């Protein structure tokens, strides 16, 4: 159960970070993606700050043989730059550009009385389910095979 300490503390901090950075404001995000309009470069600072901290911290953390509260590191194993990566990232960008939300801010927005995310998040979950169901049906019609967790980025 101690593992939940890490999960809850990290989750809360992540939520605060999203709120502070205003990633939960769709207009702010679209103001960054709208390079032809009144361009707002703020989001580059969000990404820069996050990657800047993580790139240094990860370097030290990944030298350890195991994390502090669980048995082993659970890291992505896929390395290939293939069609699913390119097509999937492309489709994600289209959805991001339409809505102004990526998954983290969409979840964090459940904290605000803003109905937009009550449409966005169920649609996101349906989209993820449809993608996995379509992959599973390619493999012999076996629906919903358990996916290894390590295929996440």
């Amino acid at each position, binding site marked *: 159960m101690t593992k939940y300490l890490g999960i809850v503390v990290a*989750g809360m*901090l992540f939520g605060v970070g*999203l709120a502070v950075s205003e990633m*939960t404001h769709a207009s702010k995000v679209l103001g960054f993606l709208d390079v032809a309009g*009144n361009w707002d470069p703020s989001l580059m600072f969000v990404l820069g700050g996050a*990657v800047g901290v993580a790139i240094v911290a990860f370097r030290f953390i990944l030298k350890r043989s195991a994390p502090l*509260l669980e048995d082993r590191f659970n890291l992505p194993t896929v390395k290939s730059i293939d069609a699913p990566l390119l097509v999937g990232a492309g489709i994600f*960008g289209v959805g991001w550009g*339409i809505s102004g939300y990526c998954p983290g801010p969409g979840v964090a927005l459940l904290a605000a009385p803003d109905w937009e995310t009550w449409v966005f998040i169920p649609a996101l979950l349906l989209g993820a389910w449809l993608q996995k169901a379509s992959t599973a049906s390619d493999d012999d019609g076996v629906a919903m095979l358990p996916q290894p967790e390590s295929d996440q980025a």
Partner: protein
Amino acid sequence: MDTFTPISALAGGVLIGAAASLLLWLNGRIAGISGIAGGLVTGRRGDIPWRLAFLAALVVGAALYYGLFGNTPVARPHFPGWLLAVGGLLVGFGTSLSGGCTSGHGVCGLARLSARSLVATLVFLVTGIATTFIVRHVFGVY
């Protein structure tokens, strides 16, 4: 809202990076929100409790900030709901297919110096910028 806010953006980014680092250090996991959320409907049943705990904590963190400091987001007055549904579907499908989103590929992947994540990040930035241009400047939807 459309004004440049480098300080809060940088501060928020640092907190996000710290959160991702904490999750890796303490739990050995990548803080990719599309993976953590999508896994609720596609992953192993036994993983559901920790996924829910993380996502609930994320909502609580944001709620605490809004409760203490305000700046709570409000829905856009004229943005069509069906576009949010289409956007959500594409975000869910695309991140599941490519194995990550802005946090998984964009923050954690870049921090791990993953070429795969760098490519994914460039691709979703390009299609995001192109799509925003079309939605805003061709169709005039804000």
